[in-house]
């Protein structure tokens, strides 16, 4: 099952601050919902265990995350390979930052994911909406963490 989502966040923080945030594994990991644990391997790689609930399929997913910054293009690619519950998620999210020149930054993001296994099959009917909610949550979290306002975690159903 393939999904594609995209969106845009206006972040009231300067470009350098947002760029630094997007290239710090700890900070990126803190934006994920229902994190059980995070293990930072190096400056661009971390592993995180996340609680997932899609339809009747519930349990822990282990995500291996690699950040690929491209300063020239003002882009950070976030490559994620997740496995758990006999299922696999392969995802590439690309965040493109735009310095608005007024101390704010626009974060345009696009995400493509392929989901295989029971999560795709059992949760097929609700997966699309659930996955979209999680992705949107992650990028709103980026804004909130940078500006200090709390976000409400999406419910896990």
């Amino acid at each position, binding site marked *: *099952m*393939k999904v594609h989502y995209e969106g845009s966040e206006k972040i009231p923080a300067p470009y350098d601050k947002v760029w630094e945030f997007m290239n710090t594994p700890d900070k990126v990991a803190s934006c994920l919902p229902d994190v059980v644990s995070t293990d930072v391997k190096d400056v661009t790689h971390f592993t995180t265990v996340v609680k997932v609930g899609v339809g009747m399929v519930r349990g822990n997913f282990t995500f291996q995350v690699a950040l690929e910054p491209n300063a020239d293009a003002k882009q950070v690619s976030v490559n994620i390979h997740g496995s758990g519950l006999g299922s696999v998620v392969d995802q590439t999210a690309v965040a493109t930052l735009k310095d608005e020149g007024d101390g704010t930054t626009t974060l345009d993001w696009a995400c493509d994911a392929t989901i295989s296994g029971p999560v*795709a099959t059992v949760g097929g009917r609700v997966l699309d909406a659930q996955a979209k909610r999680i992705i949107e949550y992650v990028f709103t979290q980026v804004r909130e963490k940078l500006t200090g306002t709390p976000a409400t975690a999406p419910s896990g159903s």
Partner: protein
Amino acid sequence: MATEPTTLSFGQPVKRKEDGRFIQGRGNYLDDIVLPKMIYMALVRSPYGHAKINNIDTSAALKVPGVKAVITAKELAGAGLDWMPTLAQDKQMVLAGGKVLFQYQEVAAVFADTREAAADGVAAVQVDYEPLQAVTDPYKAMAKDAPILRDDREKKTNHIWHYEVGDQKTTADALSGAPVKIKQMIRFPRCHPSPLEPCGCIADFNGGTGRLTFYVTSQAPHAHRTVISLVSKVPESNIRVVSPDIGGGFGNKVPVYPGYVCAIVGSLTLGVPVKWVESRTENLASTHFARDYWMETEIGATKDGKVTALKVSTVADHGAFDGAANPTKYPAGLFGICTGSYDFPTAFVEVDGYYTNKAPGGIAYRCSFRVTEAAYCIERAMDILADELKMDPVDLRRKNFIPKEKFPYPSATGWTYDSGDYEKTLDKALQTIDYKNLLKEQAEKRKRGELSGIGVSTFTEIVGAGPAHNFDILGIKMFDSAEIRVHPTGSALVRTGTKAQGQGHETTWAQIVAEELGLDVQNVLVEEGDTDTAPYGLGTYASRSTAVAGAAIAVAARKIREKAKHLAAHLLEANPDDIEWADYKFRVKGSPDRTKTMQEVAFAAYTNMPDDIEPGLEGVTYYNPPNLTFPNGAYICAVDIDRGTGAVSVRRFVAIDDCGNIINPMIVEGQIHGGLAEGFAIAFMQEIEYDEDGNNRTTNFTEYLVPSSFETPRWEVGNTVTPSPHHPLGTKGIGESPNVGSPAAFANAVVDALSPLGVRHVDIPLTREKIWKILREKGVTG
């Protein structure tokens, strides 16, 4: 004077002897069996439809508390067990080596002290996959640039085999010259038998005796014993297969599954019994599916509606491995029966099998080797022809029926139909439903703007394989067997090579013995499913039990009666030639008062036998049928469709079946009810669906629907009786007819309801969503 009985047991609605234990929860199913020191197995399955396996890391799994061992294809390859033969002479990976070919394919087996520990072990196995392009459509599998799924084969194509029957040229000529022609792609979607009890086994290898006892949910215990011996190299004498009570099979429990082989390997290696019971999802997503046929159908006819030719070109999707449980000579099973009940002067049928990244199969789901696809194809096509000719579908069928005086009838595709009286069966169905009135009612409904449909299906089945010269599975000829022992006090034990999964053999077989030997049906015990005691047989599927084993029981009983006659002559001090069997007793011809019952004779067989007669009273027969049997039926369905929602309501359903002589009318009625419920599900709600990446989207009962008594309509059932001329009891077989014949009746009714909107064909399943979309497209609903 008392009326002499005309029947002791045959034809009586004897209550099912097995139901006492079933309704009290005292059945003994596979998962009820617990052996000392038994451990559990669970399987790691592929999340991908098609992927390369770079590495399997079992180290973390082995550290899970309670986990005893983990095996992968690497370990199996060492023992030559990484592949196994399928019943279709293909081979199948036991555990995936190098790559996976369908989602939920078996990748590793984990053995542990408890089910929970085994499941934890499965979660801890790390498999490094590299996804490959999946092919889930057979038409894409046949494309030149399609990835080759089975690179283990010499043939570098996804094409498996081509099968054809009939006369291609004569049929082509007849079609090109036909004044009226129809052509339609008719799809029978992939569905699944989904028995309520999933598959499972316990392998119990005893190192002390060298014997392997294998408890398994098997419809064919002896065939499984032979396959296990061939695969494991354990001598067949050291294998005992026990098939306990089974909660439904419908063809799903005929094949040997990878889990069985892994459990046996586990028990052989670890020296303790290993139990494996699959989950609902594992059953739906990895055990063998049914159907998945794309049938391009052409009929030629005269202007007055006489059929002149039939051509069916079919693409068969077999998934990753060809696991069809078909006789060797017939890779497309008995699909050639698609000429149905009609007198086609010529026909040509071809089938091409393809591999895709889907679960392997396809087995005959309550169906005698693809006869369901065949019946659906011709019954749907006849309605399309009726629409083309603007004829009543009933009139078109009647005009083309094989007349009863033409039996035995040689069909254009090479079968010899044993007997039939199709007009009689149809007339009874028309009369039961009051067809004239139904048409009138439909016309009135249509005037009011209602969507009202009537569907007819007058199908012919082909069941009871052998004969052995034509039918075998993996080289084993398709006969069946019976062994009867009459005890000194006049009770009896009958054992057969079949294995009931709900069919009621414990009652039906007892009735045959009771009828043939004049015994009390309650005193005839039936035993099946233990290969140490039952005679070798091919098992229960394809409506073959009564047709083959039932005949074997009758013949074995008659052998006993012949011996008993000599004993009776001895007791009556008469010449055996002067003894006759009448009214369930032996009597001296011309002296009706001088009689001996079978009970008296049985006692003498052990206590008072003459010197020239062997003691005991037993009979054994291995029965090779001279021909198949050809049950038929006439089903009529009336539906109403809600114009706003597309919901179909089945207002009436009349099913008149002709299965030859009837042994137990109550069991026949029960079989028809069950099969119609399955046919209803297939027609309206069931399809195993994959997305383009090979994800199975129907892996549980919230997605793959099974109807309950709330959804199923009320059935009005009845019978006509046209005995089989070659069967010792004149019976034909009934288990599958309702599943075979009903999908077309439902579909024809729905299409008829939609026909005023210009609809001529809709593929099943006729879900509410599909019908609603049509109504919306036609502007009926907003």
